[in-house]
């Protein structure tokens, strides 16, 4: 579950865990309706943002907690603790107090504690956000490995799109308490269903305009910089925002021969405003009228571009999407 702070993703997680109750609707885990089931009988494992490790218990005590609450025999608990701790590679720290651990270790204890009870669903609430960048990336890989080993369903809550794209099979983008789109990472990125998803996941270039012609799932939109074709079904006269990903925009030095050559392409003429070097790629800002359009180009091409040059931007119509204009609506 991906979304900005306050969008309700943690609340949704708490609803799944049973720590909050819905006013309406149902929650089902593996087909079982758990809406009225209290958290302690839902068999979910939660890794909290703050980890919520019990300060009065040791590492092993924390991991054993869920099983000992369930009244399992001591030998079984000991075995499970040992197994789970080795899973998170902390078998040597069982007797430590949790306050004596580093952030990454604490995170792994929290994970081990959630895993030890053999939950049907694992819930992660911003579980990696407290870690520094390197550790976070390391943990992402390790978590993926672990989750594959265990084979449990895991729900991550995060506001970090990279983390979401890296770790998930499916992503629910949330905004204002609603799911904007539920899709696999690729679809989500390539076919964002809403303007919000488009804006929240990755970069975009947008133009505001009015639908001039419509038909067959395609629209032609008049924008401040000319007519643009896009995928979408709107009536003529609707206010829309057309958008595409910067990497689809190609900067073409003024080569007259290309004009109109490819029917399935949009093109806009403008002037290069800035070239921002970003390693393997560069970001290029092109001014067209009073609009600024974002494009990306491989370093090799970008090095030939200079601010002030005239430039034409070209991109495929199939990668251009039209969305209702939220401001016009308001």
């Amino acid at each position: 579950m991906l979304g900005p702070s306050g969008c309700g993703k943690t609340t949704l997680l708490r609803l799944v865990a049973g720590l909050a109750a819905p006013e309406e609707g149902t929650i089902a885990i593996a087909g079982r309706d758990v809406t009225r089931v209290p958290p302690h009988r839902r068999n979910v494992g939660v890794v909290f943002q703050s980890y919520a490790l019990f300060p009065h218990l040791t590492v092993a005590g924390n991991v054993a907690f869920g099983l000992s609450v369930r009244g399992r025999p001591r030998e079984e608990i000991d075995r499970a603790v040992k197994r789970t701790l080795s899973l998170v590679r902390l078998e040597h720290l069982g007797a430590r107090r949790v306050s004596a651990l580093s952030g990454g270790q604490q995170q792994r204890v929290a994970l081990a504690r959630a895993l030890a009870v053999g939950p049907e669903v694992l819930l992660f609430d911003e579980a990696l956000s407290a870690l520094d960048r390197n550790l976070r990336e390391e943990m992402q890989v390790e978590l993926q490995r672990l989750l594959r080993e265990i084979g449990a369903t895991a729900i991550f809550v995060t506001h970090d799109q990279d983390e979401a794209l890296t770790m998930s099979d499916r992503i629910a983008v949330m905004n204002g308490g609603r799911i904007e789109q539920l899709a696999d990472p690729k679809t989500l990125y390539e076919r964002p269903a809403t303007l919000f998803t488009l804006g929240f996941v990755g970069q975009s270039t947008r133009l505001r305009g009015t639908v001039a012609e419509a038909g067959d799932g395609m629209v032609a939109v008049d924008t401040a910089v000319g007519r643009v074709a896009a995928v979408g079904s709107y009536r003529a006269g609707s206010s829309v925002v057309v958008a595409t990903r910067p990497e689809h925009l190609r900067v073409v030095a003024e080569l007259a021969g290309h004009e109109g050559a490819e029917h399935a392409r949009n093109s806009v003429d403008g002037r290069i405003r800035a070239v921002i070097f970003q390693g393997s790629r560069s970001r290029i800002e092109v001014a067209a009228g009073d609009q600024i359009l974002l494009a990306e180009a491989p370093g090799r091409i970008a090095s030939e571009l200079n601010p002030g040059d005239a430039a034409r931007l070209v991109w495929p119509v199939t990668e251009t999407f039209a969305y209702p204009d939220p401001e016009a609506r308001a």
Partner: protein
Amino acid sequence: MTARLAVGFAWLAALAAVLFLLVPLLTVAAASFSPTPVFDLPLDGASLRWYARIATLDGFWPALSLSLQIALLSTAIALVIGTLAAIAIVRGRLPGAEALATALVSPLMMPGLVLGIALLQYFRAMGFTATWSALLLAHLVVTLPYVARTMIAGLALFDFTLVEAARTLGCTYAGAILRVMVPALAPSFLTAGLFSFLASFDNYPVSIFLTDVRTKTLPIKMLQYIEEAPDPTLAALSTLILAATVILLVASDRLIGLHRMAGTSE
């Protein structure tokens, strides 16, 4: 540099506080060995005659037993309802939380004897004359402020996610409070419980109006003994109570320690 000074100052203040608090107690303990009937220091010689006298004091054991019953019960009840109220106040979803927090301390703002007179007339006006129950109810009012105030402070820094974590791990709400919040807040619970127990065990301004000839708490008996004669009997009695409290403190220290140990082996 400033930090080191501050730490030094803190230790100095703590040392001064400890000495300051213990000096009158040591004075009492020393005076209890007086060979003369005068509650005074210095002593010439030492004697245990005032300890021997305690055994002969009439009504001492029933009074001690009553005081223990009332103190333990009122503390137990106050701990439960005071902690619940503190949770409600600290979690902040309670309308008028701040007003309730202040109101919960208000019984301490009344001189005990006013509370005693008020409760006496109130109970009698309702035809309620059972001394034991009246004492318990009155002591609940006396002990609740200590528990509530201490727990509100203690809970302020408590991370309630711990309770939620325990719930997702299989604890009921009550179980999570008992297995996680209570041990994690052991110092606060210990403080609240001891405040409450001792406030009840040492109370006389409220009790004096509610006790009767058959049902007297220890402080009321002690007041009677000192009225009979201001001799070192009271010093001896106080010294014994202090000794018992030391044992109680060591025991609770051990208990908390044991609890921690139990936690590690879980």
